[in-house]
């Protein structure tokens, strides 16, 4: 044993951690050493076991075997309270904030300081002031969470995690919902924390973030750690290879688009949410056969609502949508079934909430939306054999693994779930394809496959409307790009003119002088 480094005991040391869920071995002999005061990245595809490992570190799960040391001491975490007691804080991918409470009330949660709130309130205010001074984490204590932009909400999460003096901060996919500008601010905060001796554990699948901010990185694949690297001594290509186990094409090669007739035309579209908030205002654009029209923007700026309006899932107040020559207005709406019957396919942004019924088997999902078709039954009855045959066909054509139609949708990995949705929606050879976040939570290997499929559809004459929060995806696939901010369009660019910085500025709501705003 090397005890000579005792003055530099690692902040966290894991030795041979194992964790199984039934027959699934989520973590296999994971050993990890995180130096105190460093920023340590953990990368891996979805399902590689990153989340399980973090849940073990944060006391949500108990490892089946193995040792865990925090600051040189062997520990056994049985709950997140144990982790907090050891100075470990965590910022979850999905925020754990009470959205109708103020910043102060959220930060105070768990440290109210007795039955009366006055004392806790005072202490929390002092904490907020201290953190603002030390790390530049300014927030308005009285602002209600629901009114805050996503980046600020995340800052509140970080404040919650470190308010009690946490020395180890775990962040799970922190930049998924941030603009490039907000992500940069986050990294500044992390650097400030590091200067103060806080250890940061950053879980992500974005290699450029790893390269930009971490000191060391560990790569996970199939529940195992397949490599530790000093960030300075590695490259994105090497990390990608370690993650996937083979060489990956990080960008797709796409030919020139051959746009022809306008198939989808949106003009003057306006829409309010059920809570009365204006979510879309005066949106106008068109998409031609044989082109990919990308919509860039931070999640939650109206893209979701736009896709839902076009798919017939959401009513709108003003304007019109013209699909294949048929006009839809607020007074003459169409149902999702009618729109699907026009050979307009929709790959929804959130496959768990919309695209799939996770508790159905794959074959049940393979006909979702098409279950009334004559192909899958006659009269009132479904023909199980025909449904299974169809599912098998989709699975083999789109490389869905495992190719078992009887397997429940929730048992597939994210990438294979998405491939199943894409297979179902593209199998009808649609004239218009509406796509939201086609590769969210999908592993690198599957991203490549999905991108190729979208381009093949484009080249076959499909008009594709693509929404994605990944700028690289929008830039890599789209022929024209519209940027949205707060329900408005900030302008439409040719993808040749659209650089990351220019799009990033427009995404932040700053008008671009080079393009007309609408």
């Amino acid at each position: 044993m090397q005890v000579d480094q005792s003055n530099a005991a690692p902040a966290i040391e894991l030795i041979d951690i194992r964790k199984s869920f039934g027959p699934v071995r989520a973590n296999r002999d994971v050993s990890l050493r995180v130096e105190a005061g460093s920023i340590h990245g953990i990368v891996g595809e979805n399902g590689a076991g990153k989340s399980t490992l973090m849940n073990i570190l944060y006391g949500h799960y108990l490892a089946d075997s193995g040792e865990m040391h925090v600051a040189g001491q062997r520990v056994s975490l049985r709950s997140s309270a144990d982790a907090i007691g050891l100075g470990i804080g965590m910022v979850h991918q999905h925020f754990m904030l009470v959205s109708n409470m103020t910043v102060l009330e959220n930060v105070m949660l768990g440290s109210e300081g007795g039955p009366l709130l006055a004392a806790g309130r005072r202490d929390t205010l002092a904490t907020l002031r201290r953190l603002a001074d030390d790390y530049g984490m300014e927030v308005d204590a009285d602002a209600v969470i629901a009114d805050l932009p996503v980046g600020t909400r995340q800052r509140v999460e970080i404040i919650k995690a470190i308010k009690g003096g946490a020395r180890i901060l775990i962040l799970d996919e922190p930049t998924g919902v941030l603009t490039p500008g907000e992500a940069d601010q986050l990294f500044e905060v992390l650097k400030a924390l590091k200067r103060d001796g806080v250890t940061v554990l950053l879980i992500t699948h974005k290699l450029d973030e790893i390269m930009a901010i971490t000191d060391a990185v560990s790569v996970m694949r199939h529940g195992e750690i397949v490599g530790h690297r000093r960030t300075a001594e590695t490259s994105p290509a090497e990390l990608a290879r370690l993650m996937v186990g083979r060489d990956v094409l990080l960008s797709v090669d796409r030919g020139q688009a051959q746009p022809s007739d306008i198939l989808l035309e949106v003009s003057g579209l306006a829409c309010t949410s059920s809570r009365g908030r204006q979510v879309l205002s005066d949106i106008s654009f068109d998409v031609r056969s044989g082109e990919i029209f990308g919509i860039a923007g931070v999640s939650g700026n109206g893209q979701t609502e736009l896709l839902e309006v076009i798919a017939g899932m959401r009513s709108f107040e003003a304007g019109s949508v013209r699909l294949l020559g048929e006009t839809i207005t607020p007074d003459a709406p169409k149902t999702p079934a009618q729109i699907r019957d026009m050979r307009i396919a929709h790959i929804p942004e959130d496959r768990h909430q919309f695209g799939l019924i996770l508790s159905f088997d794959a074959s049940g999902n393979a006909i979702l939306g098409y279950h009334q078709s004559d192909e899958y039954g006659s009269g009132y009855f479904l023909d199980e054999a025909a449904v299974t045959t169809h599912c098998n066909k989709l699975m083999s054509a789109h490389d869905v693994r495992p190719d078992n139609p009887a397997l429940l949708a929730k048992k597939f990995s994210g990438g294979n779930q998405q491939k199943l949705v894409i297979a179902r929606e593209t199998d009808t050879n649609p004239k218009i394809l509406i796509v939201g976040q086609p590769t969210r939570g999908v592993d690198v290997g599957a991203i490549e496959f999905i991108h190729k499929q979208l381009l093949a559809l484009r080249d076959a004459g499909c008009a594709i409307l693509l929404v994605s929060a990944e700028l690289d995806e929008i830039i890599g696939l789209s022929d024209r790009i519209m940027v949205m901010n707060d329900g408005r369009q900030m302008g439409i660019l040719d993808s040749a003119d659209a650089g990351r910085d220019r799009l990033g500025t427009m995404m932040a709501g700053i008008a671009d002088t080079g393009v007309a705003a609408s």
Partner: protein
Amino acid sequence: MTPAPPLPRWADVFVLPLINLTVALLVCGLIVLALGENPIVAIQVMIKGAFVYPGSLGYTLYYTTNFIFTGLAVAVAAQAMMFNIGGEGQAYIGGLGAGLVALWLAPMAPVVLVIPLAVLAAALFGAVWGLVPGYLQAYRGSHIVITTIMFNFIASAIMVWLLAGTLMQPGQQSPHTAQFAAAGQMPKLHDMLNALSFNVAASPLNLSFLLALAALFGFWVLIWKTRIGYEIRAVGQNPKAAHYAGINVPMVIVFALAVSGACAGLMATNEILGVQHRVVLNFTSGYGFAGIAIALMGRNHPVGIFFASLLFGALYQGGAELDFEFQSITREIVLLIQGMIVLFSGALAYMFSAPLARLLARLTVRPKPAAGEA
């Protein structure tokens, strides 16, 4: 706390209900012991009373019939993730439908016409009583639990008003209708079997039992073999995805509640057409609520519902025998025992789920060297 591994389906469907039943019987055994009786003897009496004595099986299956219908009433709606606790009211109103047809037609039409029409009316009246709360839920957002409870009260009030008023048998003081003519009486199974020269003891068991078995089969076909069944399950499992898929979610909810109500309404065919031969006050006597426990215990599956109904039928019949045989075990104690089984199989149905899942996972996964802090 580590989440338990998923429970295999066979264990969820067979092992878990058996464990629940065993625990319930153990607790009941302690109660019987505390009363100074021998639990082993008591359970023997119950089993004999439910299955062995002449005619007892008929009684058990007669109770079973009621439970199948009310269990289905909960299960159909549950497939659409709707909690229908209005089985009681729907059955009650179903009895009104059956009774009206029988009172009106039986004196002038043959049994082959009256009985099918009365059965249809029972289903239709029950369906309407389920459909209205379904509509209020689907289109107006009124919570189904609240409305179905309210509809139980409304049904009860309407029936009291009718049975003590317009429909009360002339010249009578008690609140029930006149007796149906012979054509309005559901044929008894022992009569039919005796006619075929089988020697079967008399019991209230009637043709409704076969109708209940057909309803179980129909439920299976509807939910797992038809397009509308697919839509019901889709709405139940993920209403957002159902909307995305172009399914008319509110309409499917209304439909599911109507079918639920029809199932409950059919209970009246057993009780009113089969046994009472008149509409009487409170003939539903809690079967509608027991349907919740039946559906829960039967995991909303036809086979499960059948066995859960059989168990409850046996408890009803065997319980009566227990009351008869033992001085110290009164009607109330029998109710208590039934309550224990509802408690363990219904309300606490998943209490042993996580421990059982862990145990099975430990047995099925290859044992690993015991290391670490676990």
